[in-house]
């Protein structure tokens, strides 16, 4: 994946992350300067976090 594609995938995931707004702003500023392996790793962390919270939410709904 090209850096631009990775950044386009990371940006919306940053907004849905549980990190504080200050950290979101920091990553938003950093990502254009990050190298591809780091962008891929950040995308992986954010994807797993979003999936974990989505699963937790649906599990909670199913258990009610």
């Amino acid at each position: 994946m090209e850096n631009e594609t990775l950044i386009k995938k990371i940006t919306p995931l940053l907004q849905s992350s549980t990190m504080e707004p200050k950290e979101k702003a920091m990553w938003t500023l950093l990502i254009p300067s990050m190298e591809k392996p780091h962008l891929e790793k950040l995308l992986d962390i954010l994807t797993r976090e979003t999936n974990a919270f989505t699963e937790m939410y649906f599990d909670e709904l199913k258990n009610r």
Partner: protein
Amino acid sequence: MGDTNPIELFQKARKIYSSLFPDKEPDTPQESREPRKAGSDGEKSGFRDYLKRIPIIGSLFADNATKEKAEATREGFEKERSGFFGEVWESVLSRYFPNISKGLDGLSAIGVTKTDAEVVPWQNEFEAITAFSLLVPDFLLKYITDPIAKSAVFQKIIENWPLTGDLAEKIKKDKNPDDVISALRIIHQDLFITGKVSLDQVRAWMK
């Protein structure tokens, strides 16, 4: 995923309400259409019902077990990002630090900003990093301040700088990010705003 239907959820919430408060049935639609008497017990009990429902709705969507699980998950990912940030910062710094001045010079040349001549070498780079540090959350700040605190140049400067109290010793001993940022702010103020310390003094210390 029938259980996610909002109507079914509401019905379940209603059952939970009834099981928790068996002596008080929730209002039926017919009852809710009847006007309550102002200032009467009816109005008060309506408000009490409302207050009772708040924790029920809260517990429906986030009980303690879920809250704890969510908190543990959040902390887990925070740790992952924390370990990863040092690597990212080092990479960004090594590629962009030497170019910050060039970038600022470029902006100055086309009239976007006016950059004053550097009083000390690397002034623009350090100021850019100090400015960026304002956006770094506390749990990540050490990745920015640790390399500064460990730097021989910085240690030499704070040894000689008229810092208040034992700030220099504390930085050498603990490398607390807040102390490093405080020292940087004092140095910046003394050098560029009040002129309490001159560049000639700094040069003399570095010989």
